[in-house]
């Protein structure tokens, strides 16, 4: 009997380590593995009407301003460039998601490609989440300049990452699987700066 192949998180081997770290540092810091989602990379001229056609298909607005993201019914739309978006869906199968978006974009000279396996998601949560990321990232990550709704492609250490702000204590880190192990090692090492005792004193 043929066995069904199931997708496995590229950081599955780090899961126990991250759970132990999160338990030890709660509520200061938590590093969690994200769900695997279907993702397509959409390229379409924003002036062509293709973006409107895609909005009909994905059921939500595409972000209009640079470095911002919007929520879709079962995923996210992240603006990666002037004519480039990353559209994710936790509900659709990758091939269906690619087909639906591509069909809408092709009519306007655009295209969409399935990139579900290109990136993997890591959540950085807790009151010190932004401080932790700042140890390897040159962006100003304070909530005032990187509020909820912002996203940015930048460097974390030596790895290219996509940072997505969901809230003040809630950030999503999207990274290529081949760099994910490096990023986790970097963050776990940086998390040693945040001993649980130091922050326990501050919390009443």
């Amino acid at each position, binding site marked *: 009997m043929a066995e069904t192949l199931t997708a496995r998180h590229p950081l599955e081997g780090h899961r126990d380590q991250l759970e132990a770290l999160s338990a030890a540092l709660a509520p200061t810091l938590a590093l969690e593995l994200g769900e695997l989602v279907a993702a397509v990379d959409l390229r379409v*001229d*924003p*002036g062509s009407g293709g973006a409107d056609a895609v909005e009909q298909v994905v059921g939500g607005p595409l972000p209009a*301003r*640079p*470095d911002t993201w919007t929520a879709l019914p079962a995923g996210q739309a992240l603006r*990666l*460039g*002037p*004519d*480039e978006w990353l559209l994710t869906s936790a509900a659709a199968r990758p091939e269906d998601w690619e087909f639906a978006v591509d069909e809408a974009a092709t009519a306007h000279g655009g295209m969409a490609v399935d990139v579900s396996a290109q990136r993997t998601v890591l959540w950085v949560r807790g009151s010190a989440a932004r401080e932790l990321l700042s140890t390897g990232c*040159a*962006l100003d990550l304070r909530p005032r300049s990187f509020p909820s709704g912002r996203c*940015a*492609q*930048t*460097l974390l250490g030596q790895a*290219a990452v996509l940072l997505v702000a969901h809230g003040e204590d809630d950030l999503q880190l999207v990274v290529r699987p081949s760099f994910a192990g490096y990023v986790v090692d970097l963050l776990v090492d940086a998390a040693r700066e945040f001993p649980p005792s130091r922050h326990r004193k501050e919390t009443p």
Partner: protein
Amino acid sequence: MQLIACPWCGPREELEFSYGGQAHVAYPADPAGLTDEQWARYVFFRDNPKGPFAERWAHSAGCRRWFTAVRDTRTHQFVSVGPLAGSEATP
């Protein structure tokens, strides 16, 4: 390290960018008609001014778009940053 103002992403670390050489080097209208020396001049010869220099830069760790920037070669300061290449879109 200095900040470079990407036309799309805004000011970012210089580390995120890659250099693309002199800007506005036009491809020859009739490449087959060039002599070897003319072709070598097109391929290899570039200006090396002391002062403002129009260059191509790519925001390779960010939006991955090419743009033109004028940099002062004496001070390494960016005088101006031009629009994105091959795109009408503006932030």
